[in-house]
């Protein structure tokens, strides 16, 4: 799979580390979260069959993180 690094261009997926779902913010008030809410933050992630907003890390290249949207069925990327 070719992954479009915003800095380096399209590179093979083997050059990257996969970062899973994008947009999961560290909770502003961890101490205020219930155990269930906290478990949600640590463990629950979207896992869609279809468009997925995900993160990649160009570990063997520029070492920058970025997000894109990829279809998890066709693997087509529409950043």
């Amino acid at each position, binding site marked *: 799979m070719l992954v479009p690094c915003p800095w380096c261009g399209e590179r093979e997926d083997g050059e990257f580390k996969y970062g899973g779902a994008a947009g999961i913010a560290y909770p502003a008030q961890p101490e205020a979260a219930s155990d269930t809410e906290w478990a949600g933050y640590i463990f629950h992630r979207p896992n869609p*069959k279809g468009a997925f907003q995900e993160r990649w890390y160009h570990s063997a290249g520029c070492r920058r993180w970025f997000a894109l949207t990829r279809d*998890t069925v066709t693997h087509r990327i529409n950043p």
Partner: protein
Amino acid sequence: MLTEPSSHPDHLWRNPEPRRGYDVVIVGGGGHGLATAYYLAKNHGITNVAILERGWLAGGNVARNTTIIRSNYLWDESAAIYEQSLKLWEGLAQELDYDILFSQRGVLNLLHSVGDVREGLRRVNANRLNGIDAEWLSAEEVKAYCPIVNISEDVRYPVLGATLQRRGGIAKHDYVAWAYARAADAFGVDLVQNCEVTGFELSGRSVTGVQTSLGRIGAGKVALCAAGHSSVLAAMLGLELPIQSHPLQALVSELLEPVLECVVMSNAVHVYVSQAHKGELVMGAGIDPYNSYAQRGSPQVIEYQLAAALELFPIFSRAHVIRTWAGIVDVSPDASPIVGLTPIENLYLNCGWGTGGFKATPASGWVYAHTIANGSPHPLNAPFSLDRFSTGALIDEHGAAAVAH
């Protein structure tokens, strides 16, 4: 070892139209779903059951895994359920009257570093004290047990030893599924193929039916059992799961004269292999790291896996890959399954077996049937609840899973 496969039964299943409603609807007609239906009928007398399979029966992960069976997991909770499974395996062909080619030819887990050796010994000791057969082999003993393994010290990551479970082995995945299917069908369970669940019907806090590509089907209880689509189904219910779906690739070689008589797994160099009844080498590796429902992965995984295989087995150097494929594995944060209740009444969940579901097929069906029939978990699946992620009581089996995540 290489006699031709025994002949199959002449009748396997009916192809019924789905009825308007059932006491239990099982979503997913794979190995676990079929086993569940069988044990619901056999152990609990519950036969007004339908299995709804979106594709062809047993065409998901059960059709495409590398068929390794063992129970040598680390923690007491895991050891118990996988060992229960192994005991069921030992009587399964007779019980289902179907030669599933179950072969207890031994499973070697090779260890290549001092740290791995320590963890391997930890597991062997835990297995032994849990009544599970487990031995430690030195490198020389590995060579004696499996002569084609390369134990030379000149390789990049030499074999330092191995754990051995002699009662572990393989079985023919399709036949296992068909054996359960035939038996369930004989009890009157409807196996409905090409029937995709597209939604759920809820009334108050309970599920009351499913919407499908073949129409609405009422259900007293609904049991989700669809590896690779657990999150898709859960999302329809607004249920969040700690599951991520990844490709897991595997491959076979052409048929070869017998050369490998046991199963060999190597966590460190990421390859596991057996030689099937017919003669083909069946080989798997680590998951592809990205999320995917495509049932295909990157060729670099295959390249790396085969380099690892040749380091361990120089004798395979001129064998050929004749087919590669992939399944969709649902990976959980602790590499342990989720089997039990959900916040929704009469809705049950069985998922998260990741790369290790096949070996658990009989026990998964057994405990899931109990859970559904009683509305509460069997002692063996009680620890594998969905809420363990809130309490923190995870059952971390990344090491024993022996497949790179």
